[in-house]
């Protein structure tokens, strides 16, 4: 009897004991972006409040160092985090089966349909899944320094669009005044100098043919492509890029544009705001910096007037083999929340794939949202960004595109004809 009572008591005690606490690991990019980090920590706080006893540890990495570490950990089958920053820099993670399918377990009603659609793709063995939460969305933009434009006597048209001749004139005026036209730093990003040529190609060819060109279905010897590249080379020869292009990092390019003010324009993703709209002592733009936005320059006889690239950027994925998979999915789900979407917009000024309630967004960045809306009032969005072009290109073509368009052309090492010949050769190789 005593024995039976003891057993029952033991069972009761065991059942009543709280579940073992779990510490989940979350690896994130955005180490130097305080506004984004604030949102990340809010999502972590919400998860921990909703799952008592479980904690999340966030480790911050520079993105380019995080990918090889993740790749090695997944290949080894150990040492990977439960949740991690993810974007289209490493599409092979999906096909390798390293990402958990988030089709269920996430409140997708709080995610914009375009965001869910973006991450719903074939995974390992062709099985379709939804692989990430689209936290950040971004368009390819051309920002400019209003004060500098005024100083140089440059007037921005009411449509925010320069014709190709006007744009050349803008570049010439900047260069003549001793400024670079574009604050581009290609030292740590292989697509940094792609924004302008991509925009010119889009305007000239239109979305369909530009995407075909990138997919390898169109020729780089197409006379319209040749015209775009030759025009682009004219801009380069006028002094479009700083001589520091190849040694300047993305972070340095931001400072070059808004703090040192050595360039008139900054062609970059609209995630610019994530780095720029923080206090100046944290690398943000000075309080008195007057930021303006442009639309893509209009090429003669272009088919893509008014079009711009927009795509999902920084996202959140869960490791398929996480030992705490249900909890890890809950961490990701903490982001699928309209309040988080509102906070993201208010703090970072960057678009998001999470649904938001604009009326409830109380942000000191409202002026920026208004400016963005004004400039992009008639924009026809094309689902792609400079970072995602590699998804369409074959690896060998992408490598050549980086070598020629991010390095050779802007550094004046090669001319447009050589660049196009190399691209066409790579395309025909089909690798």
């Amino acid at each position, binding site marked *: 009897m005593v024995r039976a009572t003891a057993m029952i008591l033991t069972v009761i005690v065991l059942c009543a004991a709280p579940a073992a606490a779990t510490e989940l690991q979350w690896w994130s990019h955005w180490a130097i972006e305080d506004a984004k980090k604030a949102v990340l920590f809010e999502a972590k706080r919400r998860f921990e409040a909703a799952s008592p006893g479980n904690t999340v540890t966030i480790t911050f990495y520079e993105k380019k160092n995080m990918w090889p570490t993740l790749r090695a950990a997944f290949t080894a089958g150990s040492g990977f985090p439960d949740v991690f920053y993810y974007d289209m820099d490493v599409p092979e993670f999906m096909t390798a089966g390293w990402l958990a399918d988030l089709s269920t377990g996430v409140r997708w009603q709080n995610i914009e349909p375009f965001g869910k659609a973006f991450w719903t793709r074939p995974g390992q063995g062709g099985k379709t899944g939804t692989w990430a939460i689209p936290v950040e969305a971004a368009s390819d933009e051309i920002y400019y320094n209003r004060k500098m434009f005024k100083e140089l006597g440059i007037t921005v048209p009411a449509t925010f669009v320069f014709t190709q001749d006007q744009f050349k004139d803008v570049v010439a005026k900047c260069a003549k005044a001793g400024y670079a036209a574009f604050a581009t730093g290609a030292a740590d990003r292989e697509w940094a100098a792609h924004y302008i040529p991509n925009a010119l190609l889009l305007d000239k060819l239109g979305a369909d043919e530009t995407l075909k060109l990138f997919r390898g279905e169109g020729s780089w010897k197409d006379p319209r492509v040749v015209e775009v590249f030759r025009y682009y080379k004219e801009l380069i020869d006028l002094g479009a890029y700083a001589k520091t292009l*190849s040694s300047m990092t993305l972070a340095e390019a931001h400072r070059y544009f808004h703090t040192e003010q050595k360039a008139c324009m900054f062609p970059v993703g609209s995630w610019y705001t994530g780095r720029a709209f923080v206090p100046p002592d944290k690398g943000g733009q000075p309080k008195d910096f007057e930021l303006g936005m442009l639309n893509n320059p209009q090429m003669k006889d272009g088919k893509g007037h008014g079009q711009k690239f927009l795509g999902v950027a920084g996202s959140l994925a869960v490791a398929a083999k996480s030992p705490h998979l249900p909890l890890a999915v809950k961490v990701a789900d903490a982001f699928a929340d309209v309040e988080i979407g509102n906070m993201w917009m208010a703090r970072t000024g960057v678009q998001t794939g999470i649904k938001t309630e604009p009326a409830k967004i109380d942000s000191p960045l409202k002026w920026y949202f208004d400016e963005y809306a004004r400039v992009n009032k008639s924009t026809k969005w094309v689902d792609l960004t400079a970072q995602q072009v590699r998804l369409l290109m074959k690896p060998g073509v992408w*490598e050549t595109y980086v070598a020629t368009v991010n*390095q050779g052309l802007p550094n004046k090492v090669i001319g447009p004809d050589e660049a196009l010949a190399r691209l066409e050769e790579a395309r025909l190789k089909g690798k």
Partner: protein
Amino acid sequence: MLVTFYNSVHTLRMDLGMQSEYVGLEHFREIVRDDDVFWKASRNSLTWAVAAPLVDMPLALVLALLLYRRVPFARFFRTVWFTPVLMSYPVVGVIWLWVYNYDWGMANLALRAVGLGHLAQAWLASPATALPALILVTTWMFAGFNMVVLLAAIHAIPADYLDAARVDGASGWRRTWHVIIPLIRPTLVNLTILDFIGKMKQFALVWVMTRGGPMWGTETVATYVVKRAFEWKTLDLGYPSAVAVLWFVIIFGLSWGLTRALQRREALEF
């Protein structure tokens, strides 16, 4: 290593659920026939491996002889010259990225300071200057190491030999040329071979400073292998493994040949 050999004759079929498929020597055929980047990377690696010892070894020898002759502040210079080898490649890479910065880098500031501002340039932006710029960095890094080893070798020469030469009226230059250098030849040969092999495998410095650019101007075989393995987004290690195997064979062959050639010459002399 065995896995690399295995991978080099296989390819990964993602469409078949990550199955490995035997392809024989297909990868090797493709490398030899069609891969321009591999050949460019090979040329760069070979240029580096040949040029670096030609610069490193005489420089290290001169520094070692200066210290041997007890120039003023010899201990200070020995520490200063040796320090770079204690630093890791990423640290050295970042330091030299600053040195080569167009606007405020020390290289261009020095040129501007002496009135040669017209020679200032973006050193890592052109294939013509990027590779020499990187070779200079490895020279800065390893001259001190080679110097210390050579200095030890010089100190190991029996004093009688040098005293005898002095008694015979040999000048300092003649003692160096006819006594010291022949006696430290084995050390020189070994350091040269090590230098050669090290440069054939050069990876980390390039990765930090240029990632093989501009226009493959500093691409080495090692960086190309890593790019093909991890940046082509295919997860297929077959082709990069074949490049690695081929390069291993080339390095092995050249090192063996170099060792034989230098040792044979040595045998003739002694």
